[in-house]
């Protein structure tokens, strides 16, 4: 009796702290958006997403479609330079027009957001799927499956991806380029996630809770989906968010080099490529797509970093 009371006396504080419990999704999102930088980034990403989704509507409002030539807006005598200052910015053409053909830059930026977002998000989805599956299989089952997948990953990562992407894309026919872009980006992109997933699976597999699940009679699929996958989620979320800016950059880069989105479909990278010959006379032509592209990549980077800190380090809003 005496000892029992002693212990409850010395036990003190009975209410455990709740900070270390897995947080709910809504709380995590609140934590992520609590920093001004990431909130701004998220807002910009939402804006670009809206541009992509509602492109036809927006273009209707602005009055000019992405493929319409406005010959009145350029000066054929000056070699096709837009009429007016700042690349022809006017109430008609909010961001001015392209030199030579007079297409509306605003409309092409709005439609360009589609190419950027669709290709980046589709690539992200595909790489995540491939990366998680291959990483899990390699890490959990080991043996021959691991050897084959690991070799394949090394092979793909040792590859000069950009040059190879250029080579493949230039060799393949240009129809269905979008699908091809997604495929090529994903084929070279998945090993980076798979490597991390594999490593984490290997270490999670060593953790005793996996052993205890097996001791409780769990089948491999149950161990993978109920025990391991939930613990991989933070990593997958972080890696995925941090991968998006890379894919946006890759798409734009490939389009810039002429092996990406096929003209006349607008893409920011392609617009920047077209502007290289004009930057000294019409800087606005490259400033708009350059700025939109830079801001989008930056926003995803800032947001991704914030997601990483919130999810991995457990940083919370104060």
């Amino acid at each position: 009796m005496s000892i029992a009371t002693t212990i409850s006396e010395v036990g003190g504080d009975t209410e455990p702290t709740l900070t270390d419990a897995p947080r709910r999704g809504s709380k995590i999102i609140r934590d992520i958006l609590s920093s001004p930088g990431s909130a701004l980034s998220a807002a910009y990403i939402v804006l670009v997403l809206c541009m992509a989704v509602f492109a036809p509507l927006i273009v209707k409002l602005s009055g000019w479609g992405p493929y319409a030539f406005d010959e009145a807006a350029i000066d054929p005598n000056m070699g096709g330079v837009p009429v007016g200052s700042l690349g022809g910015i006017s109430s008609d053409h909010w961001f001015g027009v392209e030199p030579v053909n007079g297409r509306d830059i605003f409309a092409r930026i709005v439609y360009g957001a589609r190419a950027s977002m669709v290709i980046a998000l589709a690539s992200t989805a595909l790489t995540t799927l491939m990366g998680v599956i291959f990483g899990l299989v390699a890490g959990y089952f080991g043996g021959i499956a691991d050897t084959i997948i690991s070799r394949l990953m090394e092979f793909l990562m040792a590859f000069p991806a950009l040059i190879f992407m250029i080579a493949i894309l230039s060799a393949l026919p240009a129809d269905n380029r979008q699908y091809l872009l997604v495929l090529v980006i994903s084929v070279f992109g998945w090993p980076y996630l798979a490597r991390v997933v594999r490593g984490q699976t290997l270490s999670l597999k060593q953790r005793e809770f996996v052993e205890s699940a097996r001791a409780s009679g769990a089948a491999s699929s149950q161990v993978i989906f109920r025990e391991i996958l939930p613990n991989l989620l933070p990593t997958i979320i972080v890696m995925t968010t941090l991968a998006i800016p890379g894919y946006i950059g890759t798409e734009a880069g490939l389009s810039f080099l002429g092996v990406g989105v096929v003209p006349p479909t607008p893409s920011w990278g392609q617009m920047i490529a077209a502007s290289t010959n004009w930057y000294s006379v019409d800087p606005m032509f490259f400033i708009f797509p350059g700025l939109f592209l830079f801001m989008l990549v930056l926003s995803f980077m800032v947001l991704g970093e914030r997601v990483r800190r919130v999810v991995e380090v457990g940083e919370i809003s104060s």
Partner: protein
Amino acid sequence: MTNSQRDQTLDQPADRPMLSVRDLTVAFPTAKATNEVVHHLSFDLPPGGALGIVGESGSGKSMTSLAIMNLLPPGATRSGSIVFRDTELTALREPAMRTVRGSRIAMIFQDPLSCLNPYYTVGDQIAEAYRAHRHGVSRRQAHRVAIESMERVHIRDAARRVNYYPHQFSGGMRQRVMIAMALSMEPELIIADEPTTALDVTVQAQILGLLTEIRENTGAGLILITHDLAVVSETTDQIIVMRHGDLVESGPVEQIFSEPRADYTRMLLDAVPRIDDAIDDMRTLPSSAAHETPTEGARL
């Protein structure tokens, strides 16, 4: 060493203590609140004495040792007084404190693998400490000191093993290397923070024996920090018991173990499983976990 010897050393009138800690408080101030991990701790260590600091996890025992060395993690503050042989350590600036660290007070940590730098040979790491405190010592001299120190902690074939990297040693051998490093400077005080926690019992017995041997040979003082009551009972002659940053009780070992005054000490003593004892002793402890707090209970 026999108990009668130990009793004699205890009965000697303590002359000027070698280390005197008064009102030591260690805190982690944050924007909202100040989290104190050691509150107003005071104790003395007689010259050549051996003091055990015992406590469960979260008791502040390790923070106390880091506070003496002024090696607290960033963000921590300390206040109070720490007098070591007439020097007020809290008043020393960093360059002056560096001449005390390693040279006059040496420290041995838990987990020797992570405490040794994997990129350098153990000899290099012992010699580096020696050269830092003895100016104008050549590399060869320092190398020889490293070999000698390793021989003193009974590492066989020291002349060859001095060129080994930490990962080439076993856990017990790595801890010997850490002790050799501490010894190389002939320190007046050795602070050992859980030096045997990661080791097997047979190795633990060797390391504890080694610490006692060194103390007898060099007359250095020892502060042994541990969660293991049986370890302090065999190795030290004074004990302080800590809990949640507070001093619960202090005194000579025999007194703490035979006439504990604090309830907490009694509870701890009751909880220690006995190798030689009857089985039913612990039945009086409750089996409910309602009173445990998340901060204690695990030293994982």
